[in-house]
């Protein structure tokens, strides 16, 4: 849709979507009551749109792959280990890191709403919050993983972790093969958001193609 209407000079009023108007109304009321500061709202939006995201979690995973002591700490007390890298939960939630192994694959869901480790993964994707994922991840995890193009061997055990407001999970995938010479920054580039939810695997080195095919119709995946 274009905003240029050269053929007529019809006057266009602004229209506010009803939901946008309700959010503006809430802001107006809450600012008047002194309960929120508009600048703080802008700062939170900026943080979650631009500063907090899966890159944080990727650094955590890359460090765990590179530093066995950190990996042990992450296993024992993920909240503290993650905070040591500067990523703190604002809702006072605890973190637990669940490690994939040769025979066990972990998958994270929130069946009740959308609890998600924001500080390491940012804001959850739409599908994570949709009813079918929230129910099917528990009932039919293999079917859900197949939808992501991730087919695991029959004898791989799948553990499903149900997040809550107080305890949120992140998956630490297994380190891809042939990555011995890579530093933490290079390793972090292999760690995708989906690998830390458990709906994907890390990328293979030298490729943007993940071990499991993601995205299914990957077109312009130039090697980085």
């Amino acid at each position, binding site marked *: 849709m274009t905003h240029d209407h050269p053929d007529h000079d019809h006057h266009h009023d602004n229209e506010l979507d009803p939901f946008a108007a309700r959010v503006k109304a809430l802001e107006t009321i809450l600012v008047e009551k002194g309960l929120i500061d508009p600048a703080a709202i802008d700062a939170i939006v900026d943080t979650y749109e631009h500063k907090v995201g899966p890159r944080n979690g990727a650094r955590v995973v890359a460090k765990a792959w590179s530093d066995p002591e950190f990996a042990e700490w992450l296993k024992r007390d993920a909240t503290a280990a993650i905070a040591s890298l500067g990523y703190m939960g604002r809702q006072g939630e605890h973190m637990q890191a669940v490690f994939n192994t040769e025979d066990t694959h972990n998958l994270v869901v929130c069946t009740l709403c959308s609890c998600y480790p924001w500080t390491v993964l940012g804001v959850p*994707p739409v599908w994570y919050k949709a009813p079918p994922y929230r129910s099917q991840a528990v009932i039919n995890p293999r079917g859900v993983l197949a939808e992501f193009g991730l087919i695991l061997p029959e004898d791989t055990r799948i553990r499903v972790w149900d997040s809550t407001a*107080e305890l949120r999970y992140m998956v630490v995938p297994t380190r891809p093969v042939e990555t011995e010479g890579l530093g933490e920054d290079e390793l972090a580039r292999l760690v995708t958001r989906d690998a830390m939810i458990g709906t994907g695997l890390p990328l293979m080195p030298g490729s943007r193609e993940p071990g499991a095919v993601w995205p299914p119709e990957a077109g312009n995946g130039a090697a980085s």
Partner: protein
Amino acid sequence: MSRPEPSAAAGPDAGAADTPFRLPVGSGPDAPVFAEPWQAQAFALAVALHQRGVFTWSEWAAELSRQVARPNAAQDGSDYYQHWLAAIEALLSQKGVTGSEMIDAVSHAWQRAAHATPHGQPILLENDPERA
């Protein structure tokens, strides 16, 4: 903790149990997390109100769960931030901060102000023609 099947009372709405999971089109790793600016602002409002101590995060999660479990929730999750907004309103009402009548009134004032504002100019509540 491998979780058993969620009970009807605690899990997502019953209809979802039969709906196979399909990855929505355009939902790759780089998809924007907020579809529209108001969603980001609604997200931030809940975070700010929690920081301010208006509600605890457990209260928030419980209310959001109630909202998203409504039987008419969209299967693709596209109405998620509508539920988010409803959860904020419900908690503000429960806490005696403000009620839906007040929110309705101010939101209509914003819509009138938007309508009275020429295209390209910032929308200000002062532009509401019915403003006293």
